[in-house]
């Protein structure tokens, strides 16, 4: 009986062993998403995935990629984890396993720097929302950075807060820089520290940078309290760190405007953890946020996912999938090199891809940076984050800290 049992087991198992590791229909068009799905940034990866899945569902429901005979888009996600090594290994795995036409990822700039090295080597076009300037300073042909870079964000965010303060009859003389040492934050703070604040006559009175996780925020907030800055530039990408700082701000009774650096500061869980009163009037600079006229898109997203509002991560990934779709229509091919060449020539001024991101145009320059990409300033107002700048896309007017 025993040999017979073994034979039966082999016969049953054989088809499974012979099948390819991932079953994909011949005409599917595969996009890779490398994002943190475990570890301390997993929530952001999850939000990105929601955006990608929504775009794919819409495209497939509308008949897929028409130039490829109605090919359906398939998403292959790979977990970037919580370190650059894991992110790079995830990219290598997903790109080596099957034919990938284009990729998206990997949220944190430090991860994206590593992942785009892999994509460049394997010649797969790669789209990212990461901010760090260095991502598109390496002469890569396959990297497309859709967000405005950190240094540009710093410049424009500073102009905005100085202007907003002036309109509220306040003068900014002293600033605090407080944040972690992840790549996007570093690149945002660098120009502020080196030239921008000085040019505006603003003195830096606190400059504290940490490596996540932060053990305790008392010393930082104590320094801010004792130096009394007129504005705090704030970059704590790790949620527990950020919560600790905000709780301390309340505990110490600090009353100072906070200008955040990145979309991590406008996720729904902030309201649940620290309450809307503490968040009110806090502003942050992001690469994308729902704009005036996008109410329908946001409604579709909230109904689909149960999230209370839409933020940069799903919005940007949603746009990326649509950009890839448009490139595939133009290239009439699923070949990654052909897609890359099509993206380089792309100049979209209408359609879901273009209308999702301000200023309504998708075109990448020779470095791979999106032409006209400008930062969006988002402000918490009554427990919800709203776009307040640029004014033409704003869903609410900005309120200066302390003003009614």
């Amino acid at each position, binding site marked *: 009986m025993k040999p017979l049992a073994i034979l039966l087991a082999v016969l049953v198992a054989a088809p499974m062993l012979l099948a390819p590791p991932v079953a994909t229909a011949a005409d599917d068009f595969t996009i890779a998403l490398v994002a943190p799905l475990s570890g301390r940034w997993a929530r952001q990866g999850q939000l990105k995935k929601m955006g990608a899945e929504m775009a794919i569902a819409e495209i497939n429901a509308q008949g897929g990629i028409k130039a490829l005979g109605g090919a359906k888009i398939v998403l292959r996600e790979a977990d970037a984890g919580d370190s650059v090594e894991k992110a790079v290994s995830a990219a290598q795995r997903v790109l080596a396993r099957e034919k990938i036409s284009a990729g998206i990822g990997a949220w944190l700039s430090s991860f994206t720097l590593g992942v785009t090295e892999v994509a460049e080597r394997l010649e797969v076009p790669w789209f990212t929302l990461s901010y760090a300037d260095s991502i598109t300073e390496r002469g890569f042909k396959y990297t497309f950075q859709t967000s405005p870079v950190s240094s540009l964000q710093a410049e424009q965010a500073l102009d905005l807060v100085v202007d907003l303060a002036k309109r509220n009859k306040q003068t900014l003389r002293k600033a605090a820089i407080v944040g972690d040492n992840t790549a996007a934050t570093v690149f945002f703070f660098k120009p502020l520290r080196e030239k921008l604040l000085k040019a505006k006559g603003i003195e830096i009175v606190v400059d504290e940078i940490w490596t996540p996780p932060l053990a305790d925020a008392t010393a930082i907030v104590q320094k801010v309290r004792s130096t009394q800055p007129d504005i705090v530039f704030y970059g704590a990408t790790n949620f*527990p760190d950020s919560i600790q700082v905000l709780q301390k701000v309340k505990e110490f009774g600090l009353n100072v405007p906070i200008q955040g650096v990145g979309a991590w500061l406008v996720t729904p869980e902030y309201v649940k953890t620290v309450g809307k009163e503490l968040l009110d009037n806090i502003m942050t600079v992001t690469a994308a946020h729902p704009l005036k006229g996008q109410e329908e898109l946001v409604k579709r997203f909230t109904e689909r996912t149960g999230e209370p509002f839409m933020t940069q991560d799903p919005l940007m990934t949603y746009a990326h999938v649509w950009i890839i779709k448009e490139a595939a229509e133009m290239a009439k091919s699923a070949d990654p090199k052909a897609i890359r060449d099509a993206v380089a020539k792309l100049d979209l001024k209408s359609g879901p891809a273009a209308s999702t991101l301000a200023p309504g145009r998708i075109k990448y320059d020779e470095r791979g940076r999106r032409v006209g990409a400008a930062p969006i300033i988002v402000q918490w107002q009554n427990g919800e984050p709203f776009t307040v700048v640029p004014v033409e896309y704003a869903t609410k007017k900005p309120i200066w800290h302390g003003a009614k």
Partner: protein
Amino acid sequence: MSVSDLAQYVVTGLLVGGVYALMSIGLALIFGVMRVVNFAQGDFMMLGMYLTYFLAVVSGVDPLLGALLTIPPFFLVGVGVHRALLVRVTGGGDPQRLMDAQLILTLGLSLIITNGTTMLLTPMPRGIKTAYATQAFAIGPVLLNQARSYAFLMALVLAGVVYVFLTRTDLGKALRAAADDPEAAGYQGIDVRAMHGLAFGVGIALVAAAGGLLATYHPIEPTVAVNFIVLMFVAVVLGGLGSIPGAFAGGLLIGLVQSLTLLVLPFQLQNVGVFITFLLVLYLRPQGLFGQRLRAV
């Protein structure tokens, strides 16, 4: 640097260290009695945080009480995990092979718990909104965060209870006997295997309670353990492997050093102070602050 600033740094450090101390004594107890290095200790802490969170959100239980309520179920979880898994890799046999098996088992358990929680509860961070997380007791110019102060006091009480249990009760003495010399304890009629189960249960219950206290001011996510597990190990080794008072002192010392390091080093190097202290202690007193040449609880 004024005296009040210095006092604030010391107080902050001690308050942070109090919860580190409670986290660490569970680990020290498990190592002291069973000689098992439990890599999943931080993950049980995370589960304790989630239980406290759900008690607070679903039943409206104050998280300070919730932290205490985590003790009975997690004691049973600890005893269950010991009976189902750890018993296979402790006790008699080749010590080196057993040690390897224990490491793989607890590391695997840690991965399963973290990723299982991520799948079941999603990676979304959650937090218990308490009034005392953002309020402080003022002693002159020095501010004591209320949540951390309550957590510190409860950690002190729980550590005291464990100490009394180990030194004043028959069961505690039997536990120590099983730690000191399992063979001789067996000859005296002590069920060493049951003592191992008891130690693991108490160790897990303590770290879950520490998690509950932490949840009063720290957000909860499936990966929260990575922020604390290294510090727990450092505290246990600093205090003297397996020593309960040592682990408690080690935890307090880490909090204090983390805070005082900021007086001389930038924030980015906050944990450098901890590891320099760690190396100094290992160099000058290899058995740890409270350690003896022979292992003891």
